[in-house]
């Protein structure tokens, strides 16, 4: 049967897993072996108390999470369900064209108000006692508020204005919707910073279309996955397809760009010409990295057709804590990493194209969708790598993983690819937000 790991572990003879070691002392900033985050303690992936802290301080805290795209709700009344951490939310378009958001949990007894994932509606009514809410979450109506024949109902001083749905702040970055539950978050412009903003502008420079969705459930911890695209090192080694067919190599011109606080990043690479391609193959051979000698029968699968005035063939934007927007060749998608407890997460991916794509370009993008997602030729291995790391580190309470490709110490941008420095950037901001920054920590 399924062996999906849950934070609530079954007890007794049916237990599939041995109980985890008890961490009797609460986590403190002493958890970090080094103050440059070049060692990440496995405890941060497995201690249940850490997960509660993350839900409170990160996902309920002053961060912005990608939740969807304006193109998914083009008309007034269009709505879509999404998540901030594990909190279900709805975003929808109002009559004036603005996007409103609310926590999808009834203000009365806590039931899911809007059960469908997507649709179009004037108002949102909970099925349980039919409390009815506006698109901004305001309470519009309560059945039997005055009772029946003068008996029962709510008291006279029951104020509808105090019983709306919890507001979600929504901001649009060139049509990409970010949301926060906190009233104290920075503006989205400050949060992303100019450099990240410009990369969003580059990808969302013209009207998009929604080509579909991919979902993947991985038995691992959400943080291991959000650090994965920040790690240039693994791409061409784990994903042999990249190296074999030359779509992405650590030896190609590229690097990592970060915001001033080093919490977000863009890992990028430029398309290689034929000579560079051959030189790269030689570099990999000299490192004893096995590269299969294959030829694609349908070469367009690995062909990059530049569709704007630059030669970036790979650009992966990671926004703290759990948002990713990617261009890999001509496939483009926005990814939301949805934590589902300590031991499982969902990768929810929205695949996009452009309204002005020719039929040929659309066909090319759909073919290159083979590269990404749970069956992706350059991504399927991530699911396995994260699951085997999660499984093998479960009982490690005083050891740590190594993150120091490109050196330890200062966290800074790099114009070469053999580095994983932006993984340390993630942990540095993580430590700050959850209140676990060690003394003298680099930022």
């Amino acid at each position, binding site marked *: 049967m399924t062996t999906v790991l849950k934070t609530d572990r079954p007890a007794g003879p049916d237990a599939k897993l041995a109980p985890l070691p008890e961490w009797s002392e609460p986590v403190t900033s002493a958890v970090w072996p080094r103050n440059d985050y070049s060692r990440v303690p496995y405890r941060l992936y497995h201690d249940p108390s850490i997960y509660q802290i993350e839900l409170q301080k990160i996902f309920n805290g002053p961060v912005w999470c990608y939740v969807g795209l304006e193109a998914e709700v083009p008309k007034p009344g269009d709505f879509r369900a999404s998540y901030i951490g594990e909190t279900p939310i709805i975003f929808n378009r109002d009559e004036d064209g603005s996007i409103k958001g609310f926590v999808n949990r009834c203000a009365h007894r806590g039931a899911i108000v809007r059960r469908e994932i997507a649709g179009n509606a004037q108002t949102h009514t909970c099925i349980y006692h039919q409390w009815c809410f506006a698109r901004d979450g305001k309470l519009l109506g309560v059945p039997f508020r005055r009772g029946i024949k003068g008996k029962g109902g709510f008291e006279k001083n029951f104020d509808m204005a105090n019983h709306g749905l919890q507001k979600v702040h929504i901001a649009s970055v060139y049509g990409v919707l970010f949301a926060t539950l906190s009233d104290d978050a920075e503006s989205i412009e400050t949060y992303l910073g100019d450099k990240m903003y410009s990369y969003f502008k580059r990808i969302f420079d013209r009207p998009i279309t929604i080509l579909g969705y991919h979902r993947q*459930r991985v*038995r691992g911890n959400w943080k291991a996955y959000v650090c994965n695209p920040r790690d240039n090192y693994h791409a061409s080694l784990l994903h042999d397809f990249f190296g074999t067919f030359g779509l992405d190599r650590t030896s190609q011109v590229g690097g990592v760009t970060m915001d001033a606080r080093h919490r977000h990043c863009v890992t990028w690479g430029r398309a290689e010409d034929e000579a560079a391609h051959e030189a790269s193959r030689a570099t990999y051979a000299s490192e004893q990295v096995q590269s299969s000698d294959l030829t694609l*029968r349908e070469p367009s699968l690995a062909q990059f057709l530049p569709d704007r005035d630059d030669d970036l063939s790979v650009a992966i934007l990671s926004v703290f804590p759990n948002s990713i927007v990617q261009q890999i060749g001509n496939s483009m998608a926005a990814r939301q990493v949805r934590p589902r407890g300590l031991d499982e997460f969902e990768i929810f991916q929205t*695949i996009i194209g452009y309204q002005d794509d020719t039929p040929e370009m659309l066909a090319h993008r759909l073919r290159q*969708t083979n590269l990404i997602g749970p*069956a992706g030729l350059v991504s399927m291995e991530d699911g396995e790598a994260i699951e085997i790391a999660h499984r093998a580190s479960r009982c490690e309470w005083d050891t740590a993983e190594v993150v120091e490709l490109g050196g330890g110490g200062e966290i800074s941008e790099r114009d070469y690819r053999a580095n994983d420095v932006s993984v340390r950037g993630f942990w540095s901001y993580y430590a700050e937000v959850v209140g676990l920054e060690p003394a003298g920590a680099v930022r």
Partner: protein
Amino acid sequence: MTPDLATVCRLFAEYGLLADQGKYDEWLELFTEDCSYKVIPKENADHGLPAGLIYCDSRAMLEDRIETLRAVSKCNIHTDRHLIGIPRISTEENDEVLVEAPFSVYQTEQEGDTRLFATGLYRDRLRLNGAGLKIREKMVVLDTFAVPSLLATPL
């Protein structure tokens, strides 16, 4: 020529067994030269969204998938077991028939634990000619579109 139910069932029996045994060369022989093979999440199919998890619109692409699976991709070490339900032969056009069949695939990992990996509906176009009955279009509409772990081996 219209294939009878038994002929269609025999094709699906071969299809499932050859995939589960990893005999991919023989499995590929069940497809026509102008075939396509797509795995589409049900939430995309229901809304007319074209993106697939696996999207091979030519035999060349399907062969690339299989070659990549054998030589390049790394996946969870497991065996598959296809359970294919009784097909419904719904339409005939010239020498082609449209066939729908429910399916499930269970995965068993190295230490013997089995889980339901996928269930859904095959919506196939089959062609009957001198070479026998072959798959012209394979459309796997995946009910289990929250894919557990990863999808590498064919459904």
